[in-house]
C-alpha cells in the first residue's frame, strides 16, 4: 500500500510545482526584466545571468534625470498617488453606500429586491465601453472630467456591485435570531445594524473592500477616457513606457512591479478574508 502511495504523492508534488511555476514564472520574469538594462532585455538568446541594475526603478520612482522641475513629482509617482486616492476613495464611498444597501436587500421586505440586486450586478458585467462615451460627454460638461471626484464616482460602477453582493450574502448568513434578540431588547433597525450586525461583519466588510480595491486598482478604461493629466491612475502610467517606435521594457516592468505591490500585499496578508469573502454564501 505504502509503495503505491509514494509515486502518487511525488506526482502530485511535481504537478504542484509545475502549477506554481506556471503562475509565478511571469511575475519572476517581469521582476528579472525590471532589473535588466535595455540591451540585456533585448538580447537573444535571453539572458538569465546579467549584472542587475536598479536604474529602471530609480527612473520610475524618481523620474528620469534632468526632466523634473524643482518640487515636481515624477509622473509615475503622481499616477500612483492618484490611484491610491481614487481606489481608496471609491472603496470607502462604496462601503458607505453599499453596506446599508446590502443590509436592506438582505433583510428588508422591499418589493422586487431581487431585481434591484440584479441591476447592481449588471453594472459589473455590462461592458464599460458601452457607457464610457456618454459619461465622457457628461463629465466634460459638468466639470467632473479629470477630477478625483469624477473618477471616484465612475469607480462606483466597479466597487458598488462587489460590495453589495458580497455583503448581501454575508448578511444573509447571519442567523436572524441574533437580530430578533436585539429587537426584543428594544433596538431599532439602525441600532441593530450599527451595534449588532457590523461588529460581527468585520471579515466580510474587509474582504468586500479588498476585492473592490483590487478591481478598482486594476481598471484601465475609466482612467484612459475620463481622467486627464491631473487624475490619471497608475494603470495608465505603465502604458507610458510604450513610445511610438519602441517599448521601454525595463521601465514598464519596474512600473508593473511597483503597481502590483498593493494588490500582492492585500492578497497575501488578507488571503483568509478573501477566500472567506469569495465563498461566502456559496454553500447554504
Amino acid at each position: 500500500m505504502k509503495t503505491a502511495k509514494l509515486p502518487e504523492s511525488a506526482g502530485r508534488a511535481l504537478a504542484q510545482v509545475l502549477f506554481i511555476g506556471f503562475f509565478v514564472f511571469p511575475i519572476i520574469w517581469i521582476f528579472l526584466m525590471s532589473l535588466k538594462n535595455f540591451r540585456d532585455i533585448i538580447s537573444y538568446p535571453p539572458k538569465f545571468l546579467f549584472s542587475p541594475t536598479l536604474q529602471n526603478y530609480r527612473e520610475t520612482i524618481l523620474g528620469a534625470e534632468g526632466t523634473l522641475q524643482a518640487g515636481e513629482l515624477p509622473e509615475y509617482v503622481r499616477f500612483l498617488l492618484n490611484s491610491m486616492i481614487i481606489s481608496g476613495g471609491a472603496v470607502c464611498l462604496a462601503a458607505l453606500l453599499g453596506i446599508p444597501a446590502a443590509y436592506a436587500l438582505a433583510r428588508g421586505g422591499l418589493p422586487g429586491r431581487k431585481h434591484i440586486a440584479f441591476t447592481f450586478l449588471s453594472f459589473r458585467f455590462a461592458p464599460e465601453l458601452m457607457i464610457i462615451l456618454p459619461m465622457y460627454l457628461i463629465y466634460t460638461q459638468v466639470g467632473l472630467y479629470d477630477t478625483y471626484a469624477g473618477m471616484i464616482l465612475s469607480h462606483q460602477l466597479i466597487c458598488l456591485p462587489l460590495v453589495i453582493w458580497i455583503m448581501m450574502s454575508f448578511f444573509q448568513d447571519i442567523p436572524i435570531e441574533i437580530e430578533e434578540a436585539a429587537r426584543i431588547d428594544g433596538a431599532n433597525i439602525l441600532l441593530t445594524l450599527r451595534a449588532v450586525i457590523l461588529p460581527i461583519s468585520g471579515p466580510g466588510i474587509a474582504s468586500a473592500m479588498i476585492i473592490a480595491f483590487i478591481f478598482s486598482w486594476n481598471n484601465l478604461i475609466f482612467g484612459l477616457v475620463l481622467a486627464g493629466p491631473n487624475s490619471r491612475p497608475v494603470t495608465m502610467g505603465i502604458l507610458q513606457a510604450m513610445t511610438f517606435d519602441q517599448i521601454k521594457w525595463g521601465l514598464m516592468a519596474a512600473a508593473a512591479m511597483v503597481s502590483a505591490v498593493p494588490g500582492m500585499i492585500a492578497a497575501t496578508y488578507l488571503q483568509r478574508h478573501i477566500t472567506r469573502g469569495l465563498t461566502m454564501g456559496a454553500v447554504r
Partner: protein
Amino acid sequence: MKFDHLQILKSGSWVSAFAGAALLGASAAAVSQDFDWKQQNGSSVNALLVSHQFVEALRPLVPEFEEMTGITVNLDVLAEQAANEKLLADLSSRAGTVDVFMTSPLNNWQYATANWLEPLDEFIDNPALTSPDYDVGDFFQGVLNSNRWTRVPMQGIGEGPLWALPINSESYLLAYRPSVFQELGLEVPETYDELLAIADKLDTGSAEFGLITRFDKFWDLPYLTFGTMLQSYGVEMIDADGNLQICSDASVQATDDFVTLIKTASPEGAGAFTWYEALQGFASGQYALSLNEADLFAPVYQDPEQSEVSDDVGYAPTPLGPDGTRKAGAWIWSMSINAASKNKDAAWLFLSWVTSKDTMIAMNLNGNMNPVRASAWESPDVVAMVNSWGETPGQYSDVTATMAEVAAVRFPPHPELTRMLDRWAQAVQEVYFNGTDARTALCEAQDDIGKMFN
C-alpha cells in the same frame, strides 16, 4: 552635397499628384514686425500627443512658449493606441477638451470627413494671428500639402483646405551591418533580385538572422514598409482608371518575393513583427539587414546607449523593382486643431510656434527626425549631426535625399482606407502563415475591399 539635398527635398515629389499646388506664405510676409504673442495671455491649451521622440524634443521648450505668450500648455502624452482612443472619444463627442493633437494625413481623412478638424488656412493668412517670420513657404511643399484635402473621397489630395501642419516626416531605407557584409564578401543589394539571390547567405556570418522587417497584420504593411516594395514593383492600390490593382500580376509577384524573402532570411514568427521587433532586433545586432525600415530609427541605431551596432551600421536606398523603379511610402506626423476647441486662437499660437523655424530646428537637433522645413536642412548644426550617421560621412543624408525623391502618399484619400488596408495586410499574412496561393488570397482581398467603397 547639402545643396543637392535641399533642392531635391524642396521640389521633392512627396505627394506626386499635386506638384503644382499653389504656395501660400507670401501673404504673411508684409506684416508689421511687432507681432503680439501676448494676445491670448491667461488662456490655456490642451495638447494630446503620441509618445514619440518629437514630444521629448518639444517638452523642454514649452516653458519658453508659456513665458512668451502667457498661455498655459498642458501636454497630455499617451501611447499611440491609447492616444488614438482618447482622441476619438473627444472628437466624436465634440467635447472640445483637446485643443490640438498629433495626427497624420491618413487619420485626418477620417477626422476631416466628420468635420472634426479646423481648417488652418485662415489662421495662416491672418497677420494678427501668425507671426510675420512664420514663412509657410519654407516647408517642403509636398510634405505640407499632403495635409490638404478637398474631402471628396478618392481624389483631391493636395488640394483644398489645410487640415494639419507637418512636424516630422519618415520614409524607408535599408540599414545594414557593414562588418557582416564584409565578412561574407557580399555587396549591399541594389535590387530586389540581388536581395533574393543573397537572402540565404545573410545569416551565415556573425549575424544570427538574415533580415528583419515590420510585417504585422495591419494597414501599415501595404501602406509603409511592404508598401515601399509594392510600389517599386509598380503596384498602386488603384490605377489611373480607378481599378483596384491588389491582385495584379505585379502585386502577386511582389507578394511572392516578399514572403520568400521573409521565409528564407527571417526567424520563425517574423509575420508578427512590429516596429518594436524591427527596431530593437536590428539595434541588438541580431540581423545583417533591416529591410525598408523607417529612416528615423537612425538616431537610435547611432546611440551607443540604446544600440549594439552604433559603430557598425550603414544605410542604403531601398532596392529597385524588376524594371529598375524605386518608389517609397511616406509617413508624416502632423498636428491639427480640434474644430470643437474653445481656445482655437491660443491653440493656433501654440501650433504655429511649434512649427516655426527656430522651434523646429531645436527639435530636429534633439531627435525629432526628419526635418520638414528647408531651413532646418540649411542649419549647420543639423547638417553636422546628420553627416556623422552611417558607414561613411554623409551616407545617411545621401540616402534620405534619394528616398525623399521617390517617397509619396500614393493612396486614394478615403475615410475607410485603414480598414481596406487591414484587409490587404491580412491577405499577405495568409500567404505567409497558411501558404495560401498569393493570387487567390489577394483577389479575395480585392473583392472585399471593392465592396467597402460602396
